[in-house]
């Protein structure tokens, strides 16, 4: 199904992202691709779909055959007869106003007779458990529903090859498990790029590892690669599946006082209560995580804490900074260094430039100081936006999914940055789906469900097996799974 020979890909003016790749994937074979961010995993998938170099310019040498067609010269629309692609964001994959039109669209493009389209749409939706969504509007779907509809549109024409680029990355744990569970039985040859391996019950039998230079450094049965190459994977910053998050060994002493005191917080939006009766103390020197499924009110809570939403109840305390979920929506300047210096300059901090330089270095962005923030990769943008908020010296820093799109190494750099803010006496609140981050970084945990606080307290208590209740109740941990292990 896939045959590449000495394949190298370089974007104009940059070092190659894929180097000398020779890879063979049989019909029906499933392959998991691991590697740090920037190792060319997504580029490889885009090349196999015909997007690179035909829609996105790149220099390609070597050969890439997909279902017998040269992927570098066959139009993506023609390759689509054999290839289905699923990426992480439903907003980029749902092009039409209604679910039915969306799923029928690939069949119309293959000139299926209209009378056969309707039953095929029904089957495809049923396969992903989305039959009830058939007449919904795509704009009104939740992230998990949207991703299932996108999967249905990918599967509807039974492609021989499925390219899956972090299909669960944007989903909450419950939705990620649902989508993860659907992929293995989807059929066809598959290439899966994924960081959240724990959400996939049935991992592909074969695993390939790309290093940071885009070379294939390991390839073999998944069990052997994960076992034999554990040292290599860890050196590359790849998180291993099945490794349960373990708690930090040194719990911080409980701090007294609070930098932000929240009492009876309630928010109504669009005629319904999104948050009700939230009491919360953000303590100096401690990192608080807010966890909960999508729609539980996490992001609304951050907006209210930052004073950006009208609310009931009181929020008293010091100044508050907020890192939004999508970095691009927060950028104000034309270079990365100006972006980080923005806040300090505005606050008339002496030596804002030096502060900015140091902050860029702490998130591994020094070489990109002059780059346009909008042109950075998603993971780089995330680090830039956290750094830009961290330098402002707010009493409390709030961050929505601060480690999204990071590999092990850059994720750790961000966690270290947040930890150092807390150690300097600031309060830090993160909203996250990343329970590993919670276990590594977080002192206090707030579990939200349906706009109410289901549980709060020291993370060590709430993550211990004896107290898994709230995480299970919130749907954050699969029934039977353990959220963490005592250290």
């Amino acid at each position, binding site marked *: 199904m896939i045959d590449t020979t000495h394949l190298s890909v370089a974007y104009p003016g940059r070092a190659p992202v894929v180097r000398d790749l020779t890879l063979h994937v049989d019909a029906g074979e499933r392959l998991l691709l691991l590697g740090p961010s920037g190792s060319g995993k997504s580029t490889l998938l885009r090349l196999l*779909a015909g*997007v690179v170099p035909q*829609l996105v310019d790149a220099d390609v040498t070597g050969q890439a055959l997909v279902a017998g067609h040269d992927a570098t010269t066959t*139009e*993506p*629309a*023609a390759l*689509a*007869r054999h*290839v289905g692609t699923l990426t992480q*964001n439903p*907003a*980029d*994959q749902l*092009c*039409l*106003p*209604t679910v*039915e*039109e969306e799923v*029928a669209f*690939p*069949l*119309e*493009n*293959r*000139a*299926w007779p*209209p009378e056969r*389209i309707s039953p095929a*749409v029904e089957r495809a939706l049923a396969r992903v458990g989305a039959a009830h969504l058939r007449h919904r509007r795509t*704009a009104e779907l939740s992230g998990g529903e949207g991703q299932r509809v996108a999967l249905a*549109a990918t599967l509807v*024409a039974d492609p021989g090859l499925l390219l899956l680029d972090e299909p669960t990355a944007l989903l909450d744990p419950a939705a990620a498990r649902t989508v993860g569970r659907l992929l293995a039985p989807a059929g066809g040859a598959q290439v899966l790029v994924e960081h959240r391996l724990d959400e996939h019950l049935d991992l592909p039998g074969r695993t390939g590892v790309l290093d940071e230079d885009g070379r294939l450094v390991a390839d073999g049965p998944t069990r052997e690669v994960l076992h034999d190459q554990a040292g290599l994977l860890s050196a590359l910053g790849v998180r291993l599946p099945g490794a349960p998050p373990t708690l930090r060994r040194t719990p911080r002493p409980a701090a007294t006082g609070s930098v932000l005191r929240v009492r009876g917080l309630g928010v109504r939006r669009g*005629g319904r209560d999104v948050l009700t009766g939230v009491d919360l103390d953000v303590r100096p020197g401690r990192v608080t995580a807010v966890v909960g499924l999508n729609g539980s009110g996490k992001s609304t809570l951050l*907006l209210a804490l*930052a*004073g*950006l939403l009208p609310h009931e109840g009181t*929020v008293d305390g010091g*100044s*508050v*900074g*907020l890192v*939004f979920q*999508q970095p*691009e*929506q*927060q*950028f*104000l300047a034309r270079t990365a260094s100006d972006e980080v210096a*923005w*806040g300090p300059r*505005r*606050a008339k901090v002496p030596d804002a430039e030096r502060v900015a330089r140091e902050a860029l270095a702490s998130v591994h962005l020094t070489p990109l100081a002059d780059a346009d923030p*909008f042109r950075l990769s998603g993971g780089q943008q995330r680090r830039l936006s956290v750094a*830009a*908020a961290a330098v*402002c*010296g707010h009493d409390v820093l709030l961050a929505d999914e601060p480690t999204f799109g990071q590999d092990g190494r850059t994720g750790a750099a961000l966690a270290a940055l947040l930890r150092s803010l807390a150690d300097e006496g600031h309060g830090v609140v993160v909203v996250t789906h990343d329970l590993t981050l919670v276990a590594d970084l977080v002192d206090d945990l707030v579990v939200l469900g349906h706009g109410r606080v289901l549980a709060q307290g020291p993370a060590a208590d709430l993550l211990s097996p004896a107290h898994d209740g709230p995480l299970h109740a919130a749907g954050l941990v699969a029934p039977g799974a353990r959220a963490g292990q005592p250290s």
Partner: protein
Amino acid sequence: MSAHSPAAPRFGRALEHDSVLHRRNPTVKLLVLLAVSSVLLVPVDIATPSLVGLALVPAAVAAGRLPMRTLVTTCAAFAPFACSLLAVNAVTREGEVVAQVAGLEVTRTGLVVGASLAVRTLVVGALAVVFTTTTDGPRLMTSLHQHARLPARVTYAILAGYRVLEGLPDAWTTIRRAQAVRDPTRRRGAPLPRDPASLGRAAFALLVGALRQGERLATTLQLRGLGSGPRTVHRPVRLGPADAVLVLVTLGVCALVVAATSRAGWLLTWSTLG
């Protein structure tokens, strides 16, 4: 079914009830609307557009079962433009001076032409409101592809663009908040900044986001096989005898009115204007 009031029009979507006009072919409705507005380009007297309006607007509103409140509120959007047409024409046309207002000469010809253009604006505006509230955007695109031979690449690009537009209001609010909170001197609960520089930066981020999403949607359209050869249409839009009736009745009414005003000597055109 929906939390929205049934009479609240939403961009690109027909009102949720059914009506005779809802069931007509979208391309035919669009062509009829264009034909009526083209016919109304000719007369500059008050009687012709008024009579066309009196005949067609109530009929269209009834056939589309359009709530009067929706018609009035949406047509109110055209009123300022209509008034400005009247005002500008009243004081800029040559002719018999009937009044002096603030040092400007108001002429009889100016009043007639201005009133005619104002009525035309309101009539075409009302018909356009009936069209948009009884026509589903995506069905219009399918129909334009089927019946007007518009290439699928164009119609689906428009539909993908519609998806981007649908998301813009929420994106704008998020960006304004996201950027406001970057200001370390901002006080809790302070209103979002409204200076031109702030709005400009927010507009830039909105534009970049919309363009990127548009690009990604365009890629998805191709990855789903758009443009790979001949295609079929899952739910074709019907074109039937009732659509022919709509054309005949509407254009017939226009022809009758023009014939009547011409016979009565009321019809004025740009060329017969003194």
